[in-house]
């Protein structure tokens, strides 16, 4: 049926051209070297002095990446920040999702919407809001001093703590959504049965609720971890000199050093890092919500 092929082809071609092909362009330029020109990299296929074609491959960008401690630390820092963010989001998000899932059915959509709304509402501005709260003479310090809990303002802004706060805050809704959708489907009678058989609530939770919600935990953690690894806005606005994240390194290589090949190499390394989590996520989602 030609109509069917056409309906598939239109979005397929768009996404292939503007989403898939660019990755190969990045890969190509990561093997190039920076020159002062427009565009600022050496063409992959050039002409030698005698007029013959020659291939200009520069794999040394990759060895450079591994030999420079700054990049290695930025990678480790990004992975650690994203992992801690996912863990804390799980600890905060789980009771929230559980509470919504156990609320009366007419309340659930409204509560869920309350949680999701901030996710859609201007990421940049929500991160910006924390500057006014966390800085030296910001709202939090003023409030704590007014309460008499502290006498000197706490130095939270531009530290690792402020980065964690911003990331947990920004990615929390990502965790709550998949947790909610697994918890909502759970058969409550299992818990009643456990209770009838004498299990205390904490035991029932650990042996029934927690294992049953594992798909949601996995999906939520990946949904937080993957975008958090490449985060740029939060470390830039809330981080300090000791905040090393790969997103800011890539940005600086690109916009400040104008070294497009090294920036591309950093991007390729980041993609490699994310391939496994993204495949896990696709598998988790394929067997998760659509199955039921």
């Amino acid at each position, binding site marked *: 049926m030609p109509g069917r092929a056409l309906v598939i082809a239109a979005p397929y071609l768009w996404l292939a051209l503007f989403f898939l092909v660019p990755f190969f362009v990045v890969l190509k330029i990561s093997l190039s070297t920076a020159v002062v020109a427009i565009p600022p990299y050496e063409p992959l296929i050039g002409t030698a002095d005698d007029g013959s074609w020659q291939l200009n491959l520069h794999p040394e960008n990759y060895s450079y990446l591994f030999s420079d401690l700054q990049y290695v630390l930025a990678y480790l820092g990004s992975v650690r920040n994203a992992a801690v963010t996912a863990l804390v989001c799980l600890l905060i998000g789980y009771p929230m999702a*559980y509470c919504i899932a156990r609320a009366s059915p007419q309340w659930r959509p409204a509560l869920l919407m309350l949680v999701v709304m901030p996710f859609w509402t201007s990421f940049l501005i929500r991160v910006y809001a924390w500057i*006014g709260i966390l800085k030296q003479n910001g709202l939090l310090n003023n409030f704590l001093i007014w309460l008499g809990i502290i006498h000197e303002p706490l130095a939270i802004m531009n530290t690792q703590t402020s980065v964690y706060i911003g990331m947990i805050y920004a990615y929390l809704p990502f965790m709550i959504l998949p947790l909610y959708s697994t918890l909502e489907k759970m058969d409550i009678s299992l818990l009643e049965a456990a209770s009838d058989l004498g299990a205390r609530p904490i035991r029932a939770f650990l042996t029934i609720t927690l294992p049953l919600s594992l798909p949601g935990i996995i999906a939520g953690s990946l949904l937080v971890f993957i975008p958090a690894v490449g985060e740029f806005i939060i470390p830039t606005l809330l981080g300090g000199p000791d905040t090393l994240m790969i997103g800011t390194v890539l940005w600086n290589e690109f916009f400040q050093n104008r070294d497009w090949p090294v920036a591309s190499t950093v991007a390729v390394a980041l993609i490699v890092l994310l391939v496994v989590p993204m495949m896990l996520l696709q598998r988790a989602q394929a067997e998760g919500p659509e199955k039921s």
Partner: protein
Amino acid sequence: MKTGWFLPISLALGLVFLYGPIVSVIVYSFNESTLVTVWGGFSTKWYAALFQDEAILNAAELSLIIAVSSATGALIIGTLSGYVLARFGRFFGRTLFAGMVLAPLVMPEIIMGISMLLLFVGLQDAIGWPARGLETIIIAHITFTTAFVAVVVQSRLVDSDLSIEEAAMDLGARPVQVFFLITLPLMAPALIAGWLLAFSLSLDDLVTTSFVSGPGSTTLPQLIFSKVKLGLNPEINALATVVITIVSIATFVAAVYQSRRRPG
């Protein structure tokens, strides 16, 4: 089962955590004082200043043009994608297609930004198109917001009853007729929700935009970002409040349409 007070309290605290910062920006946008975090009385003067700031008005106009165009583009491509994923079953290359549609939902923007820019530069080198600026920003925004439209449309179609479409086919309607007379009206709430989500995401985008924009095209988030890096100022709070209001209305309407169950 009794869960006691622990769950409701953690939900309430969580919501305070999610909304507190947004509320603080809104409250302090009405602050008389030039100091951002010291309350100096109620005033709307920062809003007045906002509407006299040429740079902000220009950036806002550009951002709105981009958001409307890219949401419309994403609506078309996202609807097709969601429809293909929900209704076409297996076809050659489906796994790759599903991956391409859904990956932008989680893909760090910094990767999409640099990769699309390098494609645009390469294309321009080869065929002289597209020039960096409005066009490239719109193409990039369409590409990453398509995923959100597709997900909304797909879940609507998966939830809805296939038998109406089958009945129409049995009664002799051609596939095109079925699509326009049955499937499209069935998807309508999802289309409205998807368009509004794409609009909000485009209006808010900083990272991808910064990579693909050209000289002379500064969007609202780019302007806010450069001002924030210079330090806080109450005018940004007023601007942020305006943006939050627009985006909240859009997402609220989107959420209402998205949660609406199919008729009957």
